[in-house]
């Protein structure tokens, strides 16, 4: 065997003086979803960076143009797959705005509860993954445990843990289950206690705080000009929340605060999400109190809502109704609409164009993540390589939403 210790003099190590190009992604364990960062390094600090998000492209907007309006729901599920219920409700509200219909009170609260649970699951995933990537594995496991409890509710209600496809134009696929309220109350309580434990674990941890504090700062002006919304914008001190600014469903009638940050760094983004989860719990409790236990969930409009199955099999009217909605699709009046809600990561907008037929003429989504991820370049330029991890994590990029 050849000796391992080579002659040192002949292999003199030279420190590089040229900037080094480092490529991370598009398929890399540190990248959530397919995104690619080409970084130009000087030593360990990032001189320039090029963030490329176009790697995930399913042509989701184009796919919407060949089915019915109802068949869009599975697609929006897969935009933000960590909080699909918010996307479902957002899309349903856009269609309902076009039809000029409002779902019954029971359904409005039902949508709010499921939506806030989805928001909690979104934030748990983000904060959990962020801490794990910084080496804190325990909080990740605990937060994902909490998320699983929420997903148990989703499974109970919708039959699916991840991609529910539960929203419908004019209501929901099914009414709430019998034990819905007790189940939610029990889970929210557990989630809050897990959250408190995680806070104790992390917020007293010097290493964790040092990795986040003062890292990835962005000014509120920059954040606004980049089109940031949601927790990332609120961490920059701008109290913009669609639920407060343009209340939809019954958000105007429930009491909740909009937490904002002061330093606009990674720690603020982490803390804003923690605080928002507590606000979610407040909203959920108020909604559960006010949600009627009985009554219709779907609007009484044969143009949009499917009839009961046993009636489809036994009466011609219901058969026709079913036939028209399934074979031709429910018809939205010709025109266009922009409807927006507060998604997990900010303003989730749908711009719909209908030609009056049963098939969407155009579906355009304004995904919050796409615009937030566009700011990654701004916040990591000048930082150390190691800071990319918390910065990227704190933006909570969801690949499915960056489908461009």
């Amino acid at each position, binding site marked *: 065997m050849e000796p391992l210790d080579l002659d040192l003099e002949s292999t003199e190590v030279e420190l590089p003086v040229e900037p080094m190009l480092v490529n991370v992604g598009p398929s890399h364990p540190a990248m959530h979803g397919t995104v690619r960062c080409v970084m130009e390094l000087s030593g360990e600090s990032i001189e320039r960076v090029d963030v490329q998000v176009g790697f995930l492209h399913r042509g989701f907007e184009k796919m919407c143009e060949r089915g019915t309006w109802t068949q869009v729901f599975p697609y929006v599920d897969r935009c933000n797959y960590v909080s699909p219920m918010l996307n479902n409700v957002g899309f349903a509200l856009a269609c309902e705005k076009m039809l000029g219909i409002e779902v019954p009170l029971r359904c409005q609260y039902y949508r709010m509860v499921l939506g806030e649970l989805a928001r909690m699951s979104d934030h748990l995933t983000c904060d959990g993954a962020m801490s794990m990537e910084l080496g804190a594995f325990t909080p990740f496991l605990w937060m994902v445990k909490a998320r699983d409890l929420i997903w148990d509710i989703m499974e109970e209600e919708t039959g699916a843990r991840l991609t529910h496809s539960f929203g419908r134009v004019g209501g929901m696929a099914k009414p709430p289950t019998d034990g819905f309220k007790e189940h939610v109350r029990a889970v929210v309580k557990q989630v809050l206690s897990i959250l408190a434990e995680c806070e104790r674990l992390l917020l007293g941890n010097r290493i964790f705080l040092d990795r986040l504090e003062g890292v990835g700062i962005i000014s509120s002006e920059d954040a606004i000009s980049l089109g940031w919304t949601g927790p990332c914008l609120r961490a920059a001190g701008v109290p913009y929340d669609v639920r407060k600014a343009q209340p939809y469903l019954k958000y105007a009638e429930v009491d909740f605060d909009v937490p904002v940050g002061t330093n606009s760094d990674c720690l603020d983004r982490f803390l804003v999400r923690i605080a928002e989860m507590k606000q979610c719990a407040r909203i959920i409790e108020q909604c559960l109190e006010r949600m009627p236990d009985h009554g219709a969930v779907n609007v009484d409009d044969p143009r949009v809502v499917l009839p009961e199955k046993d009636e489809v099999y036994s009466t011609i009217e219901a*058969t026709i109704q079913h036939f028209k909605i399934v074979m031709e699709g429910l018809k939205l009046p010709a025109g266009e609409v922009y409807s927006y809600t507060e998604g997990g990561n900010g303003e989730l907008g749908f711009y719909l164009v209908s030609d009056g037929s049963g098939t969407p003429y155009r579906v355009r989504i304004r995904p919050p993540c796409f615009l937030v991820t566009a700011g990654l370049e701004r916040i990591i330029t000048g930082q150390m390589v190691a800071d990319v991890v918390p910065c990227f994590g704190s933006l909570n990029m969801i690949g499915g939403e960056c489908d461009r």
Partner: protein
Amino acid sequence: MPTFLLDDREIEFNPGDTVIAAAERAGVDIPHYCWHPGLSTAANCRMCLVEVLPPEGRPALLLDVLRYDDQKGDYVMARKPKLQPACQLGAAPGMRIKSQTSEHAVEARAAVQEFLLLNHPVDCPICDQAGECRLQDYWLEHSGKKKRMKDEILHRPKAVDFGPTIVYDAERCIVCTRCVRFCDEVVGDHVLDKRERGNLGEIVLAPGRQLDHDYTLMTEHVCPVGALTAKDFRFKARVWFLRSVRSVCQGCATGCNAYTDYDPRNQTVYRHRPRENQEVNKYWMCDEGVLDYRRVHEGRLLNARVLGKKSSTEDALSEATARLAPVAKDKVAILLSYSHSSEDNLALLELARALGVEQAYAAGRPDGSGDKILRHVDKNPNRAGVHQLAAATLGAVPLDFQSLVRAVEAGRIGAILALGSAVEDAEAAVHLKRVPVVSISTFEGPLAQAGAVVLPASSWAEERGTFVNAAGLSQVSEKAIEPQGESLPAWRHVLALAGRLGVTLPFARAKDLEKVLNARAPRGSTGPASQPAAGVSTTEAQA
């Protein structure tokens, strides 16, 4: 033009128009079942009821009615205007009519719809009409409510055999009598009638008769619901999977306008439907024409053949060249086809001209029976077009098939390049075999039999083509499906042959061919008035 007001919209009308006809011309749909623009007015479905406002300063005509009051839980006296059926109401200047904006008309239509569906079976999943059924459309547009009747629905005769083409279902029938009126007024055959009233009303055949005239499938076409279904189309396809192109019927020289409905997924044509054209076929087609679509998939020649053996198109083209090239140009006979489009025939005529051939021959399907309604005795869709093009290209109307047979027998022909499948005298076609025959055929038939080399041509449904009907009207039939098997549009085969024979034609693409055709026979030109009567072709002596 005088006008009246319909839902605050000004509608122009011709004196004598009904309100519904004037509205339809203006693009406003007043819902209706029994009214058909091509038939007399029956006004029995009551779906087109509208409210007519009284003239200024005059009281409305009101009826006393009992209306159920939910709060009182009892019927109370009320008044409502007398509604009028728009299909029977003559339009008058300055009339003010409320259709969708009248709460009474809307209520009446919902009630009519409830009645029509009262005893309707739950048939949509197995009904051929589903997807193009007025009951479905109007229920959602004008009712949207469940019926109030709690009783079991009345069961009626189903799948009643009305004749060789039509099956009747009394449960689905709304007794609008469109089929009865069609047979009476258009065909002049009182084979259908209605019996009983109300729930029991149904359509019946005349005693001892079957629905067997030449236009039976139009009864299915006018049926607004699934009561009459065509045996040919029953359970074959679901209409929402079908796509339509505007075509021209190939069954005879009338050239009825049609829709060819096909399934793009399996490239199969499923039916013909008439397409309105007041100049040609009004709203109708005959059974022969409706069923003519079947030829797209029946008896087709899908591969090239050399001496009766399957061959590649390339080899067949070489064989065809080997047979045509050595023959003196004046001894090549060109046989045009009355069944092919003007494009195909023009390509062949251009080849003839380039080869120096001075006289062409033409053949087509033999004559059949005709009538005074639509059916023409000439069963070829493009006789007038072929004559027109031959005269414009070679300066002479083509000679008939018998002349070709005689010329072959007299030894004046060295080889034949034939387009088409059928000839007037199928038995005489064997005489062509004395000389080498190259046939470009769509179907198995006498010409394919006689051909030493046979090239597969696509049918009219597989290529856009122009056809000139007996009245001299030039019409375009659009492409529905892709060419079947190895077949190609006939003009492409002609083009390939021309290349191998060393002559250049003035077109290489479909677009150029169309330009040449438009120059030779301007579209819309009605052709010479002295068009030879159907079935009478110019004989050699006359030429």
